[in-house]
C-alpha cells in the first residue's frame, strides 16, 4: 500500500464514523458564518429546538451585503439591513463570536479567517460559500456547503460527506515576470474546464506553487470551485508556518510548538497516488483575460477572442456563441482591443495586501484612462485597508483616480449597491464572469490585480509586462 495524500491525511483525521453507505461523518473544526446563507439554518435550529454543538468552533462576519461607503450611516437597503441584523441577533442569541459592520477586523469571510489565524493547517473548515476552498491554501480541508449543511454543522459539528477522488495539479518551473497566481489559476481552469475538478479534491503542487506567497496560494485555492472542485489545498511548508506565526487566533507558546510539529506532517507522502495528475509549465503561462461567461473561457492577453465556428462540439459551440453575444464581442478580436469601462479590484480572490501592493505598483504616478467611468478598490478586510493606508497605497490609488472603499464582497456579486449596469464592461479581479454576476447585463473580464490596474491606465487590456514602470 502506497503513502497517503494530504487529502487522505486530513480526511482520516476527521472521519468520526463510516456510515456504511458510501458516506462518512466528517468532524468540522471551524465553521465560518456570514449573513446570506445562515438565517435559514438558525431558523431550522430554532424550530427543532436544537442547540449549537460547539459554539467556539464558529466565527461570524457580515460581508456580502455590506455597503463599502458611508458605513456609519448604516445600511440603506432595508432588506439587506434585515439580513445583517438577523445575523447579529443569531450571533448574540447563540453566543457566536462575530465581527460586526464597524469592527476593524470585519471583512470578507475568506480573508478574515486566515488573517486572524482562525483557519489553520489540519483543520476542516466549512462555510456556506463556495469559495471556502480558499482556506485549503493553509493545508486545511476546506469546502463550501449549502444552508442545510450549515445547520447540520452547527447542530452536530459534522457534515455527511463522501470521499472525493484525488487530483494533483502540478505547476512546474518558474513563472515569468508579471505572471501571477491569478494567471496560473485561470490557465488551469482554461486547461481542465469548469467541470474538470468535479468530484475531486485538488492538491496544487510543483515549483511555481511552492514559490507563491500565502496570498497567491489562497488565490489559487479560492478558484478551485471555478474548476468544479469543492476543495483545493497546498501542502504545509515554511511559508505556511511563517504566515501563521503570531496571528491573533494562532496557537501560542507550547501549543504552537505542538501545532507546528503536527502541521509539518501535512504533506502528501512521496509515494502517494493520485487518481489524476495534471501538469502545467509555468514558463508558458501568460497574463490571462477571460472573454466569456464561464471562467474556462480565457485567453492569453496577446491572444484573440476565439471563433465558435472552430468548435466541433455543438453544445459548446452554442455556449460560446451565446457568451460572445452576451459579452458584445466578435470572434477574432484581439484581447488588447477590448476596452473596459469599470475596474474592480477586490473579492476573496484578490483583495489581500499583496494584491493591493501589486496593483499600486502598476498605478504609481499614473492616471486612469479617459474611457474608464469608475475604478474602485475594495480591500478584503478592515485590517488590509489599514495596512494599505500605513503603506500609503490608498494615496496611490486615489491619485490614479480610484475610489478607496471599505471592506466587503462588493461588486464581485453586487448584493450591495456596487454593481454593473446592463452592457457595462468591467475588468475585475474577482472569480466569476457568469451572466449577470456583477449586475444584470454586466460584462465581466477576470484578470489579476496587476492586469486590472494596467487596463485602467491604458483604457484597454494590455500586457502588464509592456507597461512602463
Amino acid at each position: 500500500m502506497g503513502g497517503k495524500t494530504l487529502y487522505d491525511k486530513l480526511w482520516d483525521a476527521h472521519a468520526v464514523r463510516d456510515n456504511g453507505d458510501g458516506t462518512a461523518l466528517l468532524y468540522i473544526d471551524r465553521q465560518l458564518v456570514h449573513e446570506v446563507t445562515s438565517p435559514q439554518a438558525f431558523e431550522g435550529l430554532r424550530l427543532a429546538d436544537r442547540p449549537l454543538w460547539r459554539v467556539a468552533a464558529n466565527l461570524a462576519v457580515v460581508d456580502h451585503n455590506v455597503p463599502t461607503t458611508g458605513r456609519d450611516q448604516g445600511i440603506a437597503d432595508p432588506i439587506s439591513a434585515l439580513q445583517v441584523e438577523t445575523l447579529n441577533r443569531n450571533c448574540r442569541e447563540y453566543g457566536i463570536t462575530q465581527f460586526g459592520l464597524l469592527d476593524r477586523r470585519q471583512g470578507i469571510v475568506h480573508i478574515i479567517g486566515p488573517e486572524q489565524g482562525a483557519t489553520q493547517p489540519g483543520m476542516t473548515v466549512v462555510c456556506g460559500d463556495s469559495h471556502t476552498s480558499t482556506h485549503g491554501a493553509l493545508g486545511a480541508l476546506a469546502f463550501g456547503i449549502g444552508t442545510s449543511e450549515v445547520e447540520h454543522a452547527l447542530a452536530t459539528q459534522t457534515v455527511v460527506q463522501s470521499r472525493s477522488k484525488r487530483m494533483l495539479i502540478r505547476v512546474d518551473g518558474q513563472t515569468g515576470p508579471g505572471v501571477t497566481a491569478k494567471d496560473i489559476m485561470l490557465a488551469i481552469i482554461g486547461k481542465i474546464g469548469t467541470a474538470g475538478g468535479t468530484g475531486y479534491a485538488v492538491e496544487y503542487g510543483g515549483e511555481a506553487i511552492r514559490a507563491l506567497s500565502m496570498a497567491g496560494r489562497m488565490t489559487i485555492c479560492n478558484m478551485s470551485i471555478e474548476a468544479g472542485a469543492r476543495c483545493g489545498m497546498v501542502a504545509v511548508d515554511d511559508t505556511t508556518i511563517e504566515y501563521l506565526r503570531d496571528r491573533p487566533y494562532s496557537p501560542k507558546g507550547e501549543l504552537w510548538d505542538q501545532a507546528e510539529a503536527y502541521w509539518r506532517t501535512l504533506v502528501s507522502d512521496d509515494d502517494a497516488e493520485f487518481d489524476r495528475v495534471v501538469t502545467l509549465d509555468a514558463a508558458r503561462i501568460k497574463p490571462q483575460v477571460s472573454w466569456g461567461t464561464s471562467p474556462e473561457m480565457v485567453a492569453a492577453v496577446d491572444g484573440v477572442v476565439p471563433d465558435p465556428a472552430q468548435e466541433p462540439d455543438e453544445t459548446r459551440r452554442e455556449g460560446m456563441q451565446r457568451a460572445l453575444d452576451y459579452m458584445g464581442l466578435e470572434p477574432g478580436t484581439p484581447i488588447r482591443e477590448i476596452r473596459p469601462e469599470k475596474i474592480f479590484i477586490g473579492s476573496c480572490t484578490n483583495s489581500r495586501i499583496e494584491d493591493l501592493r501589486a496593483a499600486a505598483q502598476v498605478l504609481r504616478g499614473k492616471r486612469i484612462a479617459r474611457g474608464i467611468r469608475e475604478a474602485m478598490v475594495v480591500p478584503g478586510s478592515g485590517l488590509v485597508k489599514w495596512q494599505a493606508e500605513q503603506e500609503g497605497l490608498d494615496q496611490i490609488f486615489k491619485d490614479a483616480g480610484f475610489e478607496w472603499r471599505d471592506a466587503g464582497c462588493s461588486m464581485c456579486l453586487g448584493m450591495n449597491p456596487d454593481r454593473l449596469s446592463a452592457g457595462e464592461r468591467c475588468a475585475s479581479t474577482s472569480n466569476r464572469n457568469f451572466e449577470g454576476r456583477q449586475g444584470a447585463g454586466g460584462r465581466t473580464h477576470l484578470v489579476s490585480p496587476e492586469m486590472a490596474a494596467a487596463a485602467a491606465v491604458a483604457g484597454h487590456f494590455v500586457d502588464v509586462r509592456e507597461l512602463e514602470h
Partner: protein
Amino acid sequence: MEPLTQVDGLVAPLDRSNVDTDAIIPKQFLKSIHRTGFGPNLFDEWRYLDEGQPGQDCSQRPVNPDFVLNQPRYEGASILLARENFGCGSSREHAPWALAGYGFRVLIAPSFADIFYNNCSKNGLLALTLPASTVQALFEATWAQEGFRLAVDLPEQAVTTPTGERHHFDIDPHRKHMLVEGLDEIGLTLEHADEIRAYEAQRRAVTPWLFSDLDPA
C-alpha cells in the same frame, strides 16, 4: 422533508450547459431570510425582460417569450432536463429552493456540480444523471412531442418514457434513502452523538489547540 418516490411529470428542456446558480436565482433574491418564496424568481434574468427586485409581484412583469419555461407547452413541468455541469458556481441553497418552489421535483442532466447536487437532496429534489447520449435523446423527444412526460421511480432507480423505454440511473444509497424516506439528516446524525463526543475527546488530547476558544481575540 417530503418523501420522494415516484414522479410522473411533464418535462421541460433547458438546452444550455454550465448553467450556474447565479442564473438559477440571481443575487438580489438571496437577501431573503426565509426558505420559501423563490419560485417566482427562478431563472429571473432569463425569464423576465425587466430586472427583478425582491418582494415584487412577478405576475405584473414582462416575460421573455423566448425563454423555454415561458412556453405554454411546458407549463406545470415537474421534471427539468438540463445539460452538463448544471448548478455550477455559488453554493447558494436558494437555487434548489427556487427550483422546488417553481414545482420541479426531478432534474435530469449528464452531470451536476458537486455542491448543488448535495443541496438538492437536502430539499427533496432528485438530481439524477444519465449518459449524455440518453439525455440528448430525451431532449429530442421533448422537443418533438408536446406534452412529453417521463416516469421517474427512485426506489427502482429508473426513468421510463411513454413508449416504455427504461433508463437505469445510479444514486448513492445514502442519498436515495434520505430522499425516499424524507428524513431529517440532523436527527439521524444526532443518533451518533456519543461517537462524535468520543472523537472530540480523542482529538482534544492529540490536537488541543483546535479546541481553543475564539474569544478574547
